């Protein structure tokens, strides 16, 4: 081992990290080399001075007032009553709870939801409008003004200069009976179909005071429930125009 080799491993020697054989070589070298002995002694001294200087230098000492305050703060924090309200914990917990409870509820209501009577019957009503109202309206022009007041009482409120009542009859489609009123409003054919709600009890109560609008087979359908009856107003007018006719009927029927 020469001096250069020794200097490379001198720190490891000081930290007692060398294997026995290398330590032995170091001893041998140090015995014959006063310079390296001096070097080793100086390095040991530097370490010691470094350790002592950092541990005793005033700027590296903690202020006793600060130390006291930190301890008091820590003690306060240690005995502080923990708030149960912790967003980080509660938010995921609430979300999980919502999912766990919500999914079975959703599935239950999906399964037990009342049948949408309007949707089922409006399909049949639209069929009636197409087959009966649109195809044969010309045949019924002769009836204008001849229909008895009793028969047309339900749609009488619609009668005006712009709206004519062409026909009233009973028609049945796939087991469903309707009273079918055929009207012409500004040149467009409107069917008003009234039928008994067979399952009125399960019809959503929200529908009692509202008119549902939707498009079906390219036609505008406005439907509402009045008493025990379901009423469908069907035409190829705009949604607003069709709804306006339905609302007029709805208001008149309520009176």
């Amino acid at each position, binding site marked *: 081992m*020469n*001096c*250069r080799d020794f*200097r490379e491993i001198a*720190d490891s020697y000081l930290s007692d990290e060398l294997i026995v054989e290398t330590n032995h070589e170091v001893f041998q070298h140090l015995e014959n*080399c006063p*310079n*390296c002995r*001096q*070097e080793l002694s*100086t*390095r040991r*001294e*530097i*370490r010691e*001075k*470094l*350790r*002592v*200087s*950092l*541990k*005793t*230098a005033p*700027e*590296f*000492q*903690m*202020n006793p007032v*600060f*130390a006291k305050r*930190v*301890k008091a*703060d*820590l*003690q306060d*924090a*240690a*005995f502080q009553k923990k708030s149960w309200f912790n967003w980080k914990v509660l938010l995921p917990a609430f979300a999980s709870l919502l999912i766990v409870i919500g999914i079975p509820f959703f599935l239950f209501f999906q399964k037990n939801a009342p049948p949408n009577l309007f949707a089922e019957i409006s399909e049949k009503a639209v069929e009636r409008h197409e087959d009966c109202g649109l195809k044969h309206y010309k045949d019924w022009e002769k009836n204008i003004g001849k229909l008895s007041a009793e028969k047309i009482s339900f749609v009488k409120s619609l009668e005006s200069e712009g709206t004519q009542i062409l026909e009233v009859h009973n028609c049945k489609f796939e087991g469903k009976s309707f009273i079918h009123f055929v009207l012409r409003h500004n040149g467009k054919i409107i069917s008003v179909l009234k039928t008994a709600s067979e399952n009125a009890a399960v019809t959503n109560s929200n529908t009692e005071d509202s008119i549902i609008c939707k498009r079906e087979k390219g036609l505008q359908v406005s439907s509402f429930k009045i008493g025990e009856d379901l009423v469908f107003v069907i035409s190829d007018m705009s949604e607003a125009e069709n709804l306006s006719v339905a609302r007029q009927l709805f208001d008149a029927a309520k009176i």
Partner: protein
Amino acid sequence: MFGFGKQIKKENWENFEREALPFSDDLYRVAMWMVRDVEEAQDLTQETLMQALRSFHRYEMGTNCKAWLMTIMSHLNSKRRMKLGRLQLVEDTEEKIAETIAFEPSIPQNITDEDVLEALNRVPQQFSQVVVLADVEEFAYKEISNILDVPIGTVMSRLHRGRKLLRVELANYARNFGIGTENKEVAQ
């Protein structure tokens, strides 16, 4: 029920007071070395102890509590530096400078504690930090590796280079101020 909760808090505090609080001075010293500012060092020390108190249930009794505290502090300091945009990675150039110190002047004798501190101040932080943790705080390589979140090999090489740089700085500093006139060149 409330009495039981209070008892747990009391025990937790007593354990913390016994295991962690005695290292407050060491924490502050290293914090001061890391941030070089009294207020920042106090903030970092307090934040570290608060964090340690909150996480004390994770500390395994009987293991090195000082190393555990230093690890928390090092992570907090990295976060603070990142927030302040002060985080610097060890650049290749610094590593290369440290590697290419071919000539190592002899260390002067009669150096003082202040000379050593002054010289250490001139050593880049990445190296001096490892020197402080190893030679002042006397942590093992593995503990330093955990504290700084770097591989053990990196700890060893930075320590080797850090000590070397310290000696070079010490020699330069002493020469500039005429300290230690008994310089001896390597004979063999």
